[in-house]
């Protein structure tokens, strides 16, 4: 060591000042500024499954928006003469030829039922001759409506409930948490059945049941995160500056909770959709003439062995919706919170 030091003689001239006075250049940050969301979206775009899911959902949402004003035919109109027609698309795509296998022979059902030329049912008809494609469109739209309502409850009840409970702490928190425990100890199904005593079965009772229980998970997650956020120094700083609790919630808490909120919404939408389908399937959901994925499945299931198409398409629809939402939610979680991923 000392030999080296002897050889290496250092004088003030050996040193050169490197822009020490040039603070502007020193402090300059040259990378383009990305907001947290831009960064998250950049990461999300690298996730193929999430992007495919996103576009699938976009298409599905578009279809259901269209169905509000237009469906190929009236989804509830019955043509008993045209009952149980198989799927048919004009130019003979396999599986959509309008033919059915009866006793080992392919029979053109459309000809048998004297369906006028040029009238097709893309996904066939059900036992009352209702157009399944129109019904499926309506069913998907209903499912998405349920999903929207679930989001609404998450945002309108779950988020404020969680923030207030976590922020206030103390007795308020204890009481609010006991309430949540009581509510969540009652199974959803029991709540719906109790609702049936008050309301006729239908969208109303499903919505009320969701309003009672659907936001619980969101509230719990938000509360837990608020508890950690409120001890963060930037929140303390906002308090010492004199920011009001409401402003602290909107300026500091919610932006920092946003990833949790978005991800949890993405998970609660498919849960709600499945909940509605399940209730309709067992017959205490959407009542008879109206289409929902649950009623379509339930009808299709009765004749599944002879007319499988009546169940395949609604089953495929609900599966795609559920998987797409879940994959997108997973992708969003990884994009928003890169730490948990790696």
């Amino acid at each position, binding site marked *: 060591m000392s030999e080296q030091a002897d050889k290496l003689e250092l004088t003030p001239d050996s040193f050169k000042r490197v822009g020490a006075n040039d603070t502007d250049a020193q*402090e300059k*940050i040259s990378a383009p500024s990305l907001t947290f969301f831009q960064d998250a979206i950049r990461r999300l775009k690298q996730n193929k499954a999430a992007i495919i899911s996103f576009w699938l959902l976009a298409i599905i949402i578009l279809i259901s928006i269209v169905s509000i004003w237009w469906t190929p035919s009236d989804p509830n109109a019955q043509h008993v003469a045209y009952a149980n027609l198989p799927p048919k698309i004009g130019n003979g795509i396999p599986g959509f030829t309008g033919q059915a296998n009866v006793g080992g022979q392919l029979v053109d059902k459309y000809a048998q039922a004297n369906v006028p030329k040029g009238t097709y049912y893309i996904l066939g008809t059900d036992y009352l001759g209702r157009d399944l494609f129109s019904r499926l469109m309506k069913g998907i739209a209903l499912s998405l409506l349920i999903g929207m309502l679930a989001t609404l409850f998450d945002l309108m009840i779950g988020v404020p409930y969680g923030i207030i409970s976590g922020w206030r702490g103390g007795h308020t928190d204890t009481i609010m948490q006991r309430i949540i425990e009581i509510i969540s100890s009652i199974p959803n199904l029991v709540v719906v059945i109790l609702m049936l005593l008050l309301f006729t079965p239908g969208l109303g009772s499903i919505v009320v049941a969701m309003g009672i229980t659907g936001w619980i998970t969101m509230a719990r997650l938000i509360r837990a995160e608020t508890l950690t956020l409120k001890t963060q*120094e930037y929140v303390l*700083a906002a*308090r010492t*500056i*004199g*920011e009001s609790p409401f402003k602290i919630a909107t300026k500091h808490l919610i*932006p*920092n909770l946003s990833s949790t909120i978005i991800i949890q919404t993405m998970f609660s939408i498919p849960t709600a959709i499945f909940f509605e389908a399940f209730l309709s399937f067992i017959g205490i959901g959407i009542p008879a003439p109206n289409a929902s994925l649950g009623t379509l499945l339930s009808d299709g299931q009765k004749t599944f062995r002879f007319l499988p198409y009546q169940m395949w398409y609604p089953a495929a629809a609900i599966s795609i919706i559920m998987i797409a939402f879940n994959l997108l939610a997973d992708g969003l979680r990884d994009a928003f919170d890169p730490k948990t991923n790696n």
Partner: protein
Amino acid sequence: MSATNSDRPRKKLVQVQHLKQYFNPGKPNEVKAIDDISFDIYEGETFGLVGESGSGKSTTGRSIIRLYNPTSGKILFDGQDISRIKHRDMLEFRREMQMIFQDPYASLNPRMKVKDIIAEGLDVHHLVKNDQERDARVNELLNLVGLSRDHATRYPHEFSGGQRQRIGIARALAVQPRFIIADEPISALDVSIQAQVVNLLREIQQEQNLTYLFIAHDLSMVKYISDRIAVMHNGRLMELAAADEVYNHPLHPYTKSLLSAVPRPDPMYERSRHRTDYDDSIEFDNHPRTLQEIVPGHFVFAAADELADYQATAEKYLHEASALGKSPLNA
């Protein structure tokens, strides 16, 4: 390092009286973060608060700025009990007292742009009339803390620790407070940047006649910036005196142990330096202890029967000093 002139009667800006701050009181996990401390901070001075990690320094700062409600005791700011400030005067209090936080990585909201972070106080207190004025003031503040104006539209994660700490300082200065609590503003920074931030704080103090409560965990930096220093340990004050006194004539064994940990750029001294460890069992002999004034302005946490010892030590320092032909108080 401003007004230490003792001829002029000095105004007490902050008075902490028998402050106790317990967390989870009455529960099994009770923490006595602060256990009966009293001190005053004079207007225009820098009051250093030193102690090891967990001694209750941040808690003291946070109680003074009313982030916590004291378990007992009183804190007066400008003569007014802060726990009794009425709702409509609260905003004014929030403007006069500000805090610079300990952790530069946690003290800035990651979802806000730097200009909105700095301007938060301006918005809350309606200190600017329109957006141009707001931007102008933000640029002025960025300039003051040595950042450039193109930093205004960036997010905190794009900055280094030292730059973030300066953003935090700009935020505190935005509302033109009279009193700033600086909670270890430099301990998370590199040594080279520490000096920059300390100098910045001193310059601003001289310009704007600020009063500081400067919190730190070791004495080396505080003694340069503080007029008086209080040494804290386990939620209590062990010693309180003028900065030079604490540094050169420590009385309490805990202060001595803290000092023995401070490295000096002196190889001869460093070669012979040995750490004296503090044995806190001496506090548990059931003798009631309070802060006692040993020599004027120099307080030590002591029991009645220890006073004589401390006085003897103080006497000894006085002799050493006069042997060297200097008065101890302005050594």
